[in-house]
């Protein structure tokens, strides 16, 4: 038994009464402190939220299938766009990466568990409470949040529905959960690495998560702060965001985006890390430029703190400000470019095979780069006055989030499913899942560039007739993408229930400590730390 568990006992953290395997029944899941159990719960929770947020996207696309109002009331449409954004960002993408971190980081650094297992349990169980609270607002009389996922004041204060208070508490709970998860990740990585695992020997997924965790503890408190200010404006008579009392609504946007911009990197950096493990495995070559990858990730994280005002070029910031934020934003293309070139160089002259994880990873590199290019266009301050609040922005961030974050998660899921379940997934179905997702997603989001440039505003349930054809194509693509995700659910369930037994290392070129333990990974791994040379 390692020093970790012994010393936990000294400090009254005993209670590892399931040394020989999981407890039975429902209470196993409620009380578990096992990183694999908690990781699985995170992943299932995030998938449930992905389907819920996705069904809201289907409502949006159904309404936009044709011009005119036909299916939902505009007020409800606003709630759908808001909740879709909130649920996908805080409920689907972030918990999925925390789930992957829980499962894989201890296995990758040779630790027996996360450093703070009880806190781990608490940070997971806050999430169902938070999202229960958030989703319940849809059933209140005044409806749920309808001010957009960015909840700009005064829409979210003076003009907010009554349920905004529930929204604020839900955000607080999610924030506490994320902060605890981040602290846990940092403690695990810094304190529990196997002997010989120096920082620069860590897999990139661990590196990117370490940096993500620091981003989380730096900006989630700012988000907590901004919703606390809203709460005080709404209920305690302060005027942080009310001009009548000496406050300023533009202040809200500054504080929000000070959180919001690092947040977008929180959603993408772990995907960078996962893809940096998967591409070498299927190209059968070591990752090109490991060190530059680490420094590029750190640079992106640093730059993310000084670019927030590029989200608000049109609010009337001075010319020097626009120039500063424009150039700082464009600077991010440099470390990101380093990463893309490194991935391409890793594949160059490799013996590549295209199993599902690799397909998703290659699509990730290509499509994320397209999203990056539209990001560069948006970074150009004078051009942004045209693009601002149009579907071009919607196209941009869906290109970085769907084939970026979500494809990164799919790639990781297929890559590590054999380790999690002990079975190989159905490769044919997985490839079908990839191609349907790929086609559906491009069909849904690519036309949005065109309608956006032509001036179609976002978050509006109706549009001009000239946008009708492109919107219909978008909706067909969105329905395809949405329906395809049930195939993913089927593939995962099929893989859990059976299939070809997976060897300890199912992928030829895969590297890392996680492949040294049997598949499925036993309930307790690395009770004795492995030696890393």
């Amino acid at each position, binding site marked *: 038994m390692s020093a970790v568990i012994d010393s936990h006992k*000294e400090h009254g953290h005993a209670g590892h009464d399931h040394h020989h395997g999981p407890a039975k029944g429902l209470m196993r899941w409620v009380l578990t402190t096992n990183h694999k159990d908690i990781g699985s719960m995170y992943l299932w929770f995030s998938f449930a939220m992905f389907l819920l947020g996705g069904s809201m996207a289907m409502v949006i696309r159904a309404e936009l299938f044709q011009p005119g109002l036909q299916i939902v009331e505009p007020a409800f449409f606003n709630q759908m766009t808001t909740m879709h954004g909130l649920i996908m960002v805080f409920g689907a993408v972030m918990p999925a990466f925390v789930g992957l971190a829980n499962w894989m980081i201890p296995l990758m650094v040779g630790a027996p568990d996360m450093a703070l297992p009880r806190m781990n349990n608490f940070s997971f169980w806050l999430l169902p409470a938070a999202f229960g609270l958030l989703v319940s607002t849809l059933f209140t009389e005044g409806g749920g949040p309808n001010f957009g996922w960015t909840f700009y004041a005064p829409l979210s204060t003076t003009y907010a529905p009554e349920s905004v208070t529930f929204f604020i508490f839900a955000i607080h709970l999610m924030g506490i959960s994320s902060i605890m998860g981040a602290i846990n990740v940092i403690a695990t990585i810094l304190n529990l690495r196997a002997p010989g695992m120096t920082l620069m020997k860590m897999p990139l997924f661990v590196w990117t998560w370490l940096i993500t965790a620091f981003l989380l*503890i730096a900006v989630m408190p700012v988000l907590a702060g*901004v919703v606390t200010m809203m709460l005080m404006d709404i209920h305690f008579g302060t005027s*942080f965001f009310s001009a*009548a*009392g*000496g406050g300023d609504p533009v202040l809200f946007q500054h504080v929000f985006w000070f959180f919001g911009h690092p947040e977008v990197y929180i959603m993408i950096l772990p995907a960078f890390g996962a893809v940096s493990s998967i591409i070498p495995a299927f190209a059968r070559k070591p990752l090109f430029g490991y060190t530059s990858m680490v420094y590029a990730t750190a640079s992106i994280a640093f730059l993310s703190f000084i670019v927030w005002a590029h989200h608000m070029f049109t609010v009337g910031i*001075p010319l020097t400000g626009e120039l500063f934020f424009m150039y700082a934003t464009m600077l991010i293309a440099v470390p990101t470019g380093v990463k893309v070139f490194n991935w391409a160089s890793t594949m160059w002259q490799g013996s590549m095979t295209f199993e599902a994880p690799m397909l998703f990873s290659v699509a990730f590199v290509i499509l994320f780069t397209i999203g990056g290019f539209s990001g560069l266009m948006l970074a150009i301050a004078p051009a942004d006055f045209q693009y601002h609040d149009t579907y071009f922005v919607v196209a941009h961030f869906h290109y970085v989030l769907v084939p970026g974050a979500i494809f990164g998660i799919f790639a990781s899921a297929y890559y590590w499913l054999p380790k999690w379940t002990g079975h190989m997934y159905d490769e044919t179905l997985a490839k079908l899942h990839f191609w349907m997702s790929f086609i559906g997603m491009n069909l849904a989001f690519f036309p949005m560039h065109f309608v956006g440039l032509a001036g179609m505003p976002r978050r509006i349930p109706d549009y001009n007739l000239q946008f009708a054809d492109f919107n219909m194509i978008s909706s067909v693509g969105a329905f395809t993408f949405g329906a395809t995700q049930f195939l993913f659910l089927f593939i995962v369930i099929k893989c859990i229930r059976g299939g070809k037994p997976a060897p300890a290392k199912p992928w030829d070129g895969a590297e890392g400590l996680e492949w040294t333990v049997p598949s499925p990974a036993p309930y307790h791994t690395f009770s004795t730390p492995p030696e890393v040379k």
Partner: protein
Amino acid sequence: MSDALDNRRLVLRLLAVVAGMFAFGFALVPIYDVMCQAFGINGKTAGAYQGEQVVDEARQVRVQFLATNAAGMSWEFGPAADELTVVAGASNEMLFVAHNPTDKPMTAQAIPSVAPSKAAAFFHKTECFCFTQQVLQPGERIEMPVRFIVDRDLPKDVKHLTLAYTLFDITARQPPVAQATLAQTAPSRAAP
């Protein structure tokens, strides 16, 4: 390798970072105000100006006046004249008229803004009704002065600037009962 002490120390440090960043979120509020006033960003003007200026007869600037009611505000509110051509460095006065047509006493707060925003730092108000709150009895009408100096150092390309007021109904926040004292009270946070 780790022991629990390491974990505890690390967690405490990380929690300190979390607490610090939470505080930083709130610190952004005064930082934002200071930045806006120092650089005249966002059209924000500073409080009462104390200095004096030498008049520069050669420099003439058109100052346009705007008055807007915020949502839900029912007063009649407007400047006595639409615009004034002023000389840089000289003191000027403009009257704004407000009338409460309702049958209830009400409190109002005017918030100024200067456009173009880079001119805000060069627009000095020596006296302004926006420094205090206004209480009007039912049917009451008042004339409220604003005295201002346009700075000689106003950027050369600015030949025309706009002083805009938005009038907010703050009756709910500051009931007009104790008007004598309230009228002197600055708004709850930083004077506009």
